[in-house]
């Protein structure tokens, strides 16, 4: 009697990897940056993360159920949690709960699932959510806390933070403007607009060693996590190098032309969402270019757009807009950057 066996197609062995593993690694890589943010900006950072995660999972589950997809399988891919964290980290630490919720709902429901869910969305969901909030609620979105270390008195307790986020009531022991203030990019933008020079603006206490006080440490945290992601090949190295390289080159050019009106390149690299965006936002594979050369071009494009928006546009930072604009360009970039196939003559 001959033995009978199941027939499937090759290969019969697979690498021990999964979408969920890749996504979890992105989450781990965000931890150092999140820790730095929480240190300088308090409990709000963590509360935002929790609200965003819960809302994202709920929205994801509801949409998956509505679309008839297996819940456990797709919730286990952690993509909703990654979107939640990416957006939550971008929000002001005392953002009201409904702001976070609205952003997450827009990201998960509209930007992700209405386009077909995981793998099918043309735009980075977290950045769609962020831009919707930024355009619709500019005041709430630009109310940043003053980072820890400039003014010790700002340290809020967890209870006070929760109260601020859920009821909008700031603790009475603080003066209304003692807690919040503009970010370094904001100040640079406004002051330069008033005719001050970069050197004069740099004397403001919100500036730290190279960039915004506190911010620069968060950027360092995200750099460490991001480099780890690149090292384990969970993120394509071409995108962050392209983006930071492009930003550095164009910032250097303008800095050399007029150092009193254009901030130095190291300030641009360490400010705002540059490093965070380079390693965590732009590297979202679904919405990025997929060819090796294309990824470099995609990254450079984001870097240049970030600078243009920061220096000449209407917003202090431009990572979200730059990423979304390059998302549109990604399919075209892919079309024109196909790698040379084995055996194809070198052009």
């Amino acid at each position: 009697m001959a033995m009978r066996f199941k027939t499937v197609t090759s290969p019969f062995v697979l690498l021990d990897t999964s979408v969920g593993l890749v996504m979890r690694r992105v989450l781990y890589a965000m931890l150092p940056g999140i820790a730095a943010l929480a240190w300088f900006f308090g409990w709000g950072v963590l509360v935002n993360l929790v609200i965003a995660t819960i809302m994202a999972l709920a929205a994801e589950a509801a949409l998956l159920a509505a679309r008839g997809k297996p819940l456990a399988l797709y919730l286990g891919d952690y993509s909703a949690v990654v979107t939640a964290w990416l957006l939550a980290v971008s929000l002001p630490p005392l953002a009201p709960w409904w702001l976070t919720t609205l952003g997450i709902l827009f990201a998960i429901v509209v930007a992700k699932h209405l386009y077909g869910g995981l793998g099918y969305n043309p735009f980075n969901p977290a950045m769609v959510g962020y831009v919707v909030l930024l355009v619709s609620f500019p005041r709430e979105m630009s109310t940043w806390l003053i980072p820890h270390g400039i003014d010790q008195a700002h340290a809020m307790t967890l209870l006070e933070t929760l109260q601020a986020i859920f009821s909008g009531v700031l603790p009475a022991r603080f003066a209304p403007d003692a807690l919040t203030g503009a970010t370094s990019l904001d100040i640079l933008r406004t002051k330069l607009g008033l005719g001050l020079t970069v050197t004069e603006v740099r004397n403001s206490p919100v500036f730290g060693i190279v960039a915004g006080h506190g911010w620069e440490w968060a950027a360092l945290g995200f750099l460490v996590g991001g480099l780890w992601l690149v090292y384990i090949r969970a993120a394509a190295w071409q995108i962050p190098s392209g983006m930071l390289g492009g930003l550095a080159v164009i910032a250097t050019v303008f800095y050399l032309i007029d150092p009193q009106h254009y901030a130095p390149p190291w300030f641009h690299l360490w400010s705002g969402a540059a490093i965070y965006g380079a390693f965590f936002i732009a590297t979202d594979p679904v919405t990025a270019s997929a060819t090796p050369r294309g990824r470099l071009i995609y990254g450079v494009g984001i870097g240049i757009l970030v600078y243009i928006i920061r220096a000449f546009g209407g917003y202090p930072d431009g990572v979200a807009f730059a990423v979304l604009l390059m998302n549109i360009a990604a399919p075209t970039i892919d079309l024109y950057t196909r790698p040379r196939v084995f055996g194809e003559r070198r052009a």
Partner: protein
Amino acid sequence: MHPSDLRNAIRNAGVVGLGGAVFPSAVKMNLSGHCERLDHLILNGAECEPWMTCDDLIMRERAEEIVAGIHILAHLLNPQEVLIGIEDDKPEAIAAMRAACAGTGYAVRPVPTRYPSGGAKQLTKLLTNKEAPFKGRSTDIGVQCFNVATAYTLHRAVNCGEPVISRIVTVTGHVARPQNIDALLGTAFADLIAQCGGYLDGVERLIMGGPMMGFAMHTDAMPVTKATNCILAAGLGELTPELPVMPCTRCGDCVDVCPANLLPQQLYWHARAKEFDKAQDYHLFSCIECGCCSYVCPSHIPLVQYYRYAKNEIWAQEKEKQRAELARQRHQARMERLEREKQEREAKLRQKAPARPEPAIAGPEAGKPPIEAAIARARPRSETAVAESGERNG
């Protein structure tokens, strides 16, 4: 012996590529039309896939015979250089082949053990840094590649008069005594398994070939063929269980590992959408089906299966096109034949015609050429016909 006679003898002995493709070797020994003289003759001793050891063993134990086979290849192909590529995890085989090659000028070259370096194109690239053109043959770049086991059978065929009746088969996995067997062609897998002490518990799949490119057999009543380089009785431990497929996230891991520099995720999109023209634009047919993309895919998409599907669909379409073209040609030929026969009949009738008397000479059309005369005759009738139809329409 004249090269042509020698090639015929080799063909009649059934010598084919034993790496797994079983391409008739005699065809590859005829360079006419591709290049004058071969730059590199490559002997492939880099095992096709993990688990297999049949090439390793034949090089260790029958190095002299392999070299005798290489002499025949060198005689026919007259290469400038003979390179023997062996993966560097086979030191005994490298030593044995070096010893056998001493004084022959053949160079044994260790290559990194990195799947799929055993692929002919990949090994050629590793050894000569040349890439076979993707719409051509390796002889276009002056390279020809044979498996070491093929060289062995060549020696047996030419020097001993023994056609290919057996081959070395690796029997491995969940069997009591995994080993390499010199098996007669046609031997049932079950007999080879029995020779190795039978199955151990937990055999899930029986694979002919390796874990990356092999074929899962539904029964062990299959015979050994010239393509059977390995029989893998895979247990649960060796296999990845079937995993749920997730959507492609375009992570690009497949792009990084593709040895043909393809864009597997784009091929997948187009194959899945049945956009076969676009799949071909992305060089679907440069895919060697090595399975590396499926292996690394975090979404567990059976990518190679999609490429096989697309290739088969394209072949089927092309066959259909050829059939339609053939039918069209046949139809055209038939119409031409009918026309020709008709004309021949008319010509015959015309030949007979002069026998009849010519009534038209006395008529009003006298002196006009016959065709014009006929038109003139027909005119009054057609005019009346038009008039009649005009009345009917009116």
